[in-house]
């Protein structure tokens, strides 16, 4: 029964090309004119990849210490949300040039486990999730709980039975303490995503497919679901741009549809992020930047 479900989820998600993160999706590069950031702003994926490779070579692998340090600073700011997998070879090449406090192995490992092709990410996460032991290829320790969250956030539903078995032996308080309360809902929403970058779009499409009344009931009642939705990796959604990220368009649709369903506008929160109204929270995410 699981195989058809996985096939269906895969069909739903499409297949974005790895390494396609653009600069408007990364906070670390927004106001920077560093060559890497400039290169990341290119529209066309192939052109962007070539430009970023050149920029990384010229800065991170430069013979000048200051240039290398600046490039490293940029990369450590953006690596969490930016797909640096196409440049993994350059990160590895930087290792012999790195200073002691520049932990290249950890950064490269995290880039690989977050942005490698799906099958590779599954291969890397499997020992960590299934046996709770092991390390990433360059020696980085990733806790099982972190590995589970990474898998859920990337929609790697292959791990869902194992994670369900794992959660089944834990008390609800312990699941909360291990910060895994949103994991089932993350699998539900992001399941089958082709990449970490498109998991949010997949999740928002699913959210939009849930009828308004169900959402009104589920958000207040289901803490894990609520936390999963609020913790998705949202792109910047600036108004008035020609081509906004798909996740922004989906989020606007969800909010607009729900407001129409309610008929009355929600009261804005006195303190941003503190509203108990989930629609207000989504509105805040939309207007965050």
């Amino acid at each position, binding site marked *: 029964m699981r195989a058809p479900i996985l096939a269906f989820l895969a069909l739903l998600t499409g297949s974005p090309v790895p390494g396609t993160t653009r600069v408007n999706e990364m906070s670390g590069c927004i106001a920077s004119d560093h060559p890497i950031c400039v290169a990341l702003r290119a529209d066309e994926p192939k052109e962007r990849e070539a430009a970023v490779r050149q920029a990384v070579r010229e800065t991170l692998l430069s013979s000048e210490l*200051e240039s290398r*340090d*600046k490039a*490293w*600073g*940029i*990369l*450590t*700011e953006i690596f*969490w949300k930016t797909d640096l997998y196409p440049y993994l070879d350059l990160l590895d090449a930087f290792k012999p040039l790195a200073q002691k*406090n*520049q*932990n290249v192995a*950890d*950064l490269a490992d*995290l880039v690989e486990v977050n942005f490698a092709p799906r099958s590779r990410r599954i291969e890397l996460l*499997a020992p960590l*999730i*299934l*046996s*709770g*032991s092991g390390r990433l290829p360059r020696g*980085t*320790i*990733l*806790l*099982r*709980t*972190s590995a589970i969250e990474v898998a859920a956030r990337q929609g790697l539903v*292959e*791990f869902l*039975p*194992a*994670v369900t*078995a*794992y959660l089944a*032996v*834990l*008390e609800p*308080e*312990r699941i*909360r*303490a*291990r910060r895994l309360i949103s994991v089932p809902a993350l699998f539900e929403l992001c399941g089958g995503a082709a990449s970490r970058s498109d998991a949010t779009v997949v999740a928002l499409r699913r959210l939009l497919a849930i009828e308004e009344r169900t959402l009104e009931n589920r958000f207040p009642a289901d803490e894990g679901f609520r936390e999963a939705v609020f913790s998705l990796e949202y792109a910047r959604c600036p108004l008035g741009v020609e081509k906004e990220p798909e996740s922004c368009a989906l989020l606007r649709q969800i909010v607009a549809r729900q407001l129409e369903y309610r008929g009355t506008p929600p009261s804005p929160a006195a303190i941003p992020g503190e509203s108990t109204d989930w629609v207000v929270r989504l509105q805040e995410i939309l207007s965050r930047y």
Partner: protein
Amino acid sequence: MSRIQTLSAVFLRSVLAVMALGVTTVHAVGQTAARRFSIDPCSLPDLGFSGGRGWVQGSPGRYFVILTNLSAKPERELSVADGLSGHKPGETILLGIDIRSREGERPSYPVAVRVTVTGGREGSVRPAGASYRCREIAFFWNRRDGSRLEPGVEKIELTVDSPARLAGFLPDETVPRRTRPLWATTGQLRIDFGETDAARDEQHRDGEAEYAIRPEGVLAVDSASKGIPNPFLNIKAASEFFGPNLEPASFSPILEPFRAYVAVRNLKEASDAIPAVGLTRREKGDLLTSGESILLRRLGSSTIFIGSFIVLPEGYPDSATVPGRLLLSPVLSVPLGLGTIEVREAKPD
């Protein structure tokens, strides 16, 4: 270093620190056809223990573990000093785990237990009734269900899987001049337990116990044949001490109770037993144990007499109630037979 680099390094370190807290290493054994994405049951539920080693750290803890061999007939409580014996390699033994206070009460809080098989080759452990085999398991001995505490896993199965090794022969305690084999320790069964706090995902180690596993082999028809170890071969008139596996004794540090042996050659003694007393002294020479009775029994029909006693670290809880015990300083290196332990022939009243 630039400000950006400093901030980035701090951010990366904090991300990695969150990810690197407390890794548990566990291994499943004997699972050759595990499904690709099946979770290793031995690795559940990821319980780490923190806190010092019970009494050594000066906090004896109110509770202690009682391990009962439920496969033995009659069932018998295992002592840490003697460990688990009487089972052949390959046998699976049902063990009951109880945790009680000295007043006999169960803990009033949820308790987590970790059981580890160390040493040996393929020895394994699992919750009773489970189909898998592990070198280490952790489980909830009891769990909170609302305001009540529900029993959790209270029985485990230990599979003894190391080949037996004969340590030597000792006098039989029941029939004079008869000998019995002592099977050597091939591994240990270690139990850690403590209060578990689900909301904080923490386990505090309240106590631990380590039991020697002594698989029992089959004796050759001719016990006097070559290859049978005889550690007492060169015993002289002065007493000599031997460790739990009849090895020449030198123990350091002493953290758990264990059984040790003393042997002496007596050419004149006509009876089969010599009453003796054991004394121990602290490093500075003051008496720690005075006059503990030890009966030296004749080994077969030889002129060698052997007695046994339990060595306990000073300060060990309930040490006064352990018969035949000799106390020793727990953390210092204590070479036996250098005046720290003495066994003297008891003078008749």
